[in-house]
């Protein structure tokens, strides 16, 4: 009962003080808002980059082009050999007809006419990997299979029948990892900067009211009771600031991500499924924590006995 009453007293006081010191409150909210917005944008950015890398990763596969005269039984045998390799997720045979169909989809009509009913494309095996980083090992394992020679397009040089982008993948991974580390470091630095900014703002607000605090101490208010309205104010400001940051981050990603997708369709960002609520949750939590502990920390020196 008493704690409920205190809670509402804190809330009432916090709201009253916010109204009265509107300038300071506004400043604090803007500071929190901007800091969290930058953090939020960076987090969304790193999630998008992560998704792009994942998307590219999932497209990394090995293609083995088959000879037109390869016996179906031999191909089936090679297929089952490959399927037995632990790193392989799935193997699919693409027939000449399927290959042509896919080719025609991507080419212009003039090209189709030039083909003149012929199908120059070979059949192939398309191998999907569980872990794209191990592509080279898988290729090496396939190369030592004896049956390979009898089915591939270029028996005299088996490696020529393989298509996979080892170097591209390696580069992609190192760039993606670098970007992830940089994003993480930047987000941590920004949180630190936000903490200092917010703490300073709250400190100024408290300093402006040290007379009030002195009187509260004088008439015997407990430290918890003195802290209450300030902590509540800090939390309210932080949550309003975080709410604004979330709103803007949300609107920005809603507006910008489809455009990024339009500009670079090959990236194939699944922006509808980005799970950005994790970012919003983190923003609220970070805001709450810096609002609460920022104000308690800033008050410390005024509450020493």
């Amino acid at each position, binding site marked *: 009962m008493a704690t409920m009453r205190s809670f509402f007293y804190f809330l009432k006081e916090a709201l009253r003080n916010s109204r009265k010191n509107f300038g300071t409150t506004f400043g604090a909210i803007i500071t929190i808002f901007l800091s969290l917005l930058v953090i939020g944008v960076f987090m969304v950015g790193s999630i998008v980059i992560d998704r792009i890398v994942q998307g590219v990763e999932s497209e990394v596969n090995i293609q083995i082009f088959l000879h037109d005269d390869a016996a179906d039984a031999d191909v089936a045998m090679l297929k089952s050999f490959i399927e037995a390799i632990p790193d392989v997720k799935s193997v699919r045979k693409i027939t000449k007809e399927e290959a042509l169909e896919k080719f025609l989809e991507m080419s212009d009509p003039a090209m189709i006419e030039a083909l003149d009913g012929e199908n120059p494309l070979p059949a192939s095996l398309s191998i999907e990997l569980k872990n794209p980083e191990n592509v080279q090992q898988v290729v090496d394992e396939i190369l030592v299979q004896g049956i390979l020679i009898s089915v591939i397009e270029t028996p005299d040089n088996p490696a020529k029948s393989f298509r996979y982008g080892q170097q591209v993948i390696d580069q992609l991974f190192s760039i993606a990892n670098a970007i992830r580390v940089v994003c993480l470091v930047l987000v941590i630095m920004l949180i630190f900067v936000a903490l200092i900014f917010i703490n300073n703002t709250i400190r100024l607000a408290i300093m402006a009211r040290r007379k*009030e605090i002195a009187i509260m101490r*004088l*008439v*015997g208010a*407990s*430290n918890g*009771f003195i802290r209450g309205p300030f902590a509540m104010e800090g939390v309210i400001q932080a949550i309003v600031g975080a709410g604004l940051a979330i709103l803007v981050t949300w609107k920005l990603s809603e507006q910008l991500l489809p455009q990024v997708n339009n500009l670079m369709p090959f990236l194939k960002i699944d922006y509808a499924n980005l799970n950005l609520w994790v970012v919003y949750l983190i923003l609220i939590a970070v805001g709450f924590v810096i609002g609460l502990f920022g104000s308690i920390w800033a008050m410390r020196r005024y509450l020493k*006995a």
Partner: protein
Amino acid sequence: MTKAYQAAQRHPALNNISLEIFPGEFVFLVGHSGSGKSTFIRLINREFTASSGKLYVAGEELTKMRSWRVPFLRRNIGCVFQDFKLLPNKTSFQNVAFALEVIGKSRHIIRTQVPEVLRLVGLEDKIDKYPDQLSGGEQQRVSIARAIVNRPPLLICDEPTGNLDPQTSLGIMRLLDRINRTGTTILVATHDREMVDSMRKRVVALENGYLVRDQHKGVYGDDA
């Protein structure tokens, strides 16, 4: 009891003071500036603790008191200051009510006790005025109202009339005397000679941190 400040260890602000104040007394604490009056008052309020010796308030030893108990001590001690220490953005009513709010009193108690105490100090018609709409004497009455609204057994006043003219001071003193007659112990630190002489109460004189005189029905004296 001795209080030595960190900055001047060899010249204690209060040196070997031994004094007892009984419930219901009205005591003047007199002396020049720097004689230790304020230090004495702030020790009672436990704004800091004595360097050596013991100080009991209502049977409790303040040097050993845990810091979380201090707010409860202060709820039993009313404080009045030379500069009133009123909040400029609150009315008389709100200033007095503030003292009750922050110790968690219910709205019902606030609504009945605050007008009553403001009537007691003679400000029933200034209840909604802000401090800058009040005269110095009226502001000091508000601050006295705030100090006694919680009915503390002890009221300590640090130069309560230091900013006021003699006529107004007399009114404040009469008010304090009336509060004293309801049983509240009152300790007034002052260098207002006329007032001390006219009231004829117990006078404790300090000089350079030493207790030089303790006299019942005393006067300000020539030595101080």
